[in-house]
């Protein structure tokens, strides 16, 4: 039987040699997307024909990929309007959040023209731009003036790569960031207010800064009543925990990098260490039970289950909390933007997505996508988008009274969007995320090491990844 093992190994070696010889031919079609794009189109064209059977030599249907959630349903309604006006059908293809990225990138690696556009995460933009998946929209957005219709922060985070280059790859479609939902019935209960004032010496209200935030969280943590102070992100899968911690990091004045992409001394800055320590304390003292692997659904569930007085979530998930049928506390649910840090800094983790055009489709289809974006970006249609429940990035619509009054969380949203910040968006973001997720999970959830050690470790590992990828010059 040992010879079978030997045979297996020999077979592997032979395969390796054969593969090495065969590989250049096999790999060619995928290795360099710019050159492979025509080939990909050639194979795709026949398949695309039946669906595209055009009326007047034009494009009759556009397919745009997005995650499966309510905003995608709202966008589908916008698409239906577009079809009524122009006859071009717009289909929003929805993939579950957990596998949205896997699906998209796998298809892109194969040069797929399956979709005409994608509403991709802000972190993807570096990959989309540098690997040639997204069409360069710089000229289009400038010449049509669309670039000027959205708020500068959203243009930077959802549209621009590299940051500060003035090159645009996406139209900011769904603005999003983390904010907080809280139980007004608890906060405005006279007995609670009195007890709080007696204990802490100031009035119970929406917290201005994280010191007050922590007081309130501790105040409402009453295991005997089944009530806890907070519900914060802790999930390790992908990016949840890192996003959660950004909500303490940024207001504390911390960041992931400086202007020259340096991380050592930045990631492990005293501000970041303090912020991470705070997050750990919040988790230990006040986190609702069962939120050890928590992201947007779990924090919402803790809130609607009456377990948490305040929960962190993306604004896009707050509509479920204003619905009395899904949230028994809907009538008394309030929302506030991320509190300030000790020095009055503001900041919050960015969510949200921009709409990009896939580069593997034909020129006519690209033009059809541009037409759709032009239509969608008008102030009139952005107002409709906002009315349906979409988070517009249009600066004029965001300022209107109608928008601010449309939803109870809209004022907090508008305020938050002025101070959002994001994680890395370079193609290596996935590797950087894995490091931060693992180290932060060890510290926050398992209590291993100290905040300083955790951030030192992240800084060292990020530094190595960035040096290997050439973002930081090795000394």
């Amino acid at each position, binding site marked *: *039987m040992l010879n*079978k*093992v030997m045979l*297996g*190994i020999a077979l*592997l070696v032979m*395969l*390796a040699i*054969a*593969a*090495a010889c*065969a*590989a250049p031919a*096999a*790999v060619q079609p*995928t*290795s*360099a*997307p710019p050159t492979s794009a025509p080939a990909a189109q050639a194979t795709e064209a026949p398949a695309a024909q039946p669906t595209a059977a055009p009326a007047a030599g034009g494009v009759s249907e556009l397919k745009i990929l997005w995650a499966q959630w309510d905003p995608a349903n709202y966008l589908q309604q916008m698409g239906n309007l577009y079809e009524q006006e122009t006859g071009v059908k717009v289909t929003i293809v929805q993939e579950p959040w957990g596998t949205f*990225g*896997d699906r998209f*990138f*796998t298809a*892109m*690696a194969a040069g797929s023209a399956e979709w005409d556009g994608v509403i991709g995460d802000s*972190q*993807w933009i570096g*990959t989309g731009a*540098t*690997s*040639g998946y997204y069409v360069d929209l710089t000229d289009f957005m400038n010449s049509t003036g669309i670039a000027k219709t959205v708020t500068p922060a959203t243009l930077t985070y959802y549209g621009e790569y590299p940051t500060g280059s003035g090159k645009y790859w996406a139209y900011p479609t769904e603005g999003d960031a983390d904010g907080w939902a809280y139980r007004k019935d608890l906060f405005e209960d006279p007995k609670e207010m009195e007890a709080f004032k007696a204990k802490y010496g100031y009035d119970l209200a929406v917290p201005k800064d994280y010191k007050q935030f922590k007081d309130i969280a501790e105040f409402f943590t009453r*295991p005997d009543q*089944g009530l806890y102070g907070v519900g914060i992100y*802790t*999930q*390790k*899968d*992908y990016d949840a925990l890192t996003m959660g911690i950004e909500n303490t990091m940024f207001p504390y004045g911390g960041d992931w990098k400086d202007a020259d992409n340096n991380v050592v001394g930045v990631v492990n800055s005293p501000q970041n260490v303090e912020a991470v320590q705070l997050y750990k304390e919040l988790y*230990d003292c006040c986190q*609702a*039970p*069962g939120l*050890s*692997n928590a992201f947007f659904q779990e924090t919402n569930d*803790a809130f609607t*289950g009456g*377990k948490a007085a305040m929960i962190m979530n993306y604004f896009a998930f707050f509509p479920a909390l204003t619905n009395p049928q899904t949230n028994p506390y809907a009538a008394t649910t309030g929302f506030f933007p991320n509190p300030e840090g000790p020095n009055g800094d503001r900041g919050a983790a960015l969510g949200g997505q921009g709409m990009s055009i896939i580069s593997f489709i034909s020129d006519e289809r690209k033009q059809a996508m541009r037409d759709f974006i032009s239509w969608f970006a008008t102030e009139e249609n952005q107002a409709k988008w906002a009315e349906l429940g979409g988070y517009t990035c249009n600066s004029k619509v965001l300022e209107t009274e109608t928008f601010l009054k449309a939803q109870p969380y809209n004022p907090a949203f508008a305020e938050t969007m002025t101070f959002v910040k994001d994680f890395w968006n370079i*193609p290596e*973001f*996935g*590797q950087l*995320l*894995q490091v931060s997720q*693992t180290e932060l*999970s*060890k510290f926050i*959830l*398992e*209590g*291993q090491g100290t905040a300083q050690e955790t951030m030192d470790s992240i800084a060292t590992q990020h530094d190595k990844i960035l040096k290997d990828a050439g973002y930081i010059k090795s000394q």
Partner: protein
Amino acid sequence: MASITADSSVNNPISSGRAVARQLSDRAIMNLFIWPTLVLLIAFNFFPLFYSLFLSFTNYRATGNTAPVWIGIENYATILTDPSLWEAFTTTGRYVLFSVALQTVVGFGLAMLIRGKFRGSGLVTTLILVPMMLSPVVVGLFWKMMYNPNFGYFNYLVGMGESGQLDMLASRFGNQAIQGIALASVILVDVWMWSPFVMLLVLSGLNAIPDYLYEAAAIDRASSWFQFWHITLPQVMPLLLIAVLFRTIEALKSFDLVMGLTGGGPGNQTELIAVYLYRVAFLGQFRSGYSSALAYIILIIVIAISNLYIRNLNKIKGEG
């Protein structure tokens, strides 16, 4: 391929002319029977296997903008010298060991319980098999709900409900982080799901034990312990080993259950090697070269372990 003979024709001294004819047709039939399977297996495995094997010797990101760069065994060297990967291998080893061992014990116990006929035994057997008929994704989701300290049933079933102190998937009791609970809860789910598989195979082994063995033992007034140890166990052993073999292969590769339950956390407590592999192969990373090398290392481990099992199995079959 020229030396193909049918066993039966060797055993059958028939006239040589007919034997030749039959040999020819036997050979044609053998080809007809085997080649569709082989062609399908080769067609579907050839490119993916070779391609990923080639990539394992390169620096390549599927979503990158550069072609694969040949770097020899660097990926393998990096993986084998990375302490965090050894940690993942250790966790996987612990997971496979406990999970497969418990499945064997529970599955064997279940089979001993429901062997033989009683009214409704067919229904009971089918119902016990239900967990393995579920999709691992569903199982992961559901047990995450079962374990939830707020609205899950698990804590109440084990009598920890009222306090809300125990959080299995967080590896915590109250404010105390306790190593190992998270891994144990993942193992429990795997055991729940796959013990029925072991039970099924053992049951089929039990069914086939000839009665005269027990009758002879009864005449000798052998204790039931003796019967179990000297008749039941040796007779069932080959099938038990096969069950263990398949479960071991699957457990070494399992990631969907863990991904659904804990996402590999808290910290690295449930970061199995296959979870780690998924993380680097997908989830925004798409490090195809590196992940291919890791996959081949896992493959070699699986092949080695399978060989060990099969060798033992043949020994036992030989004795039997």
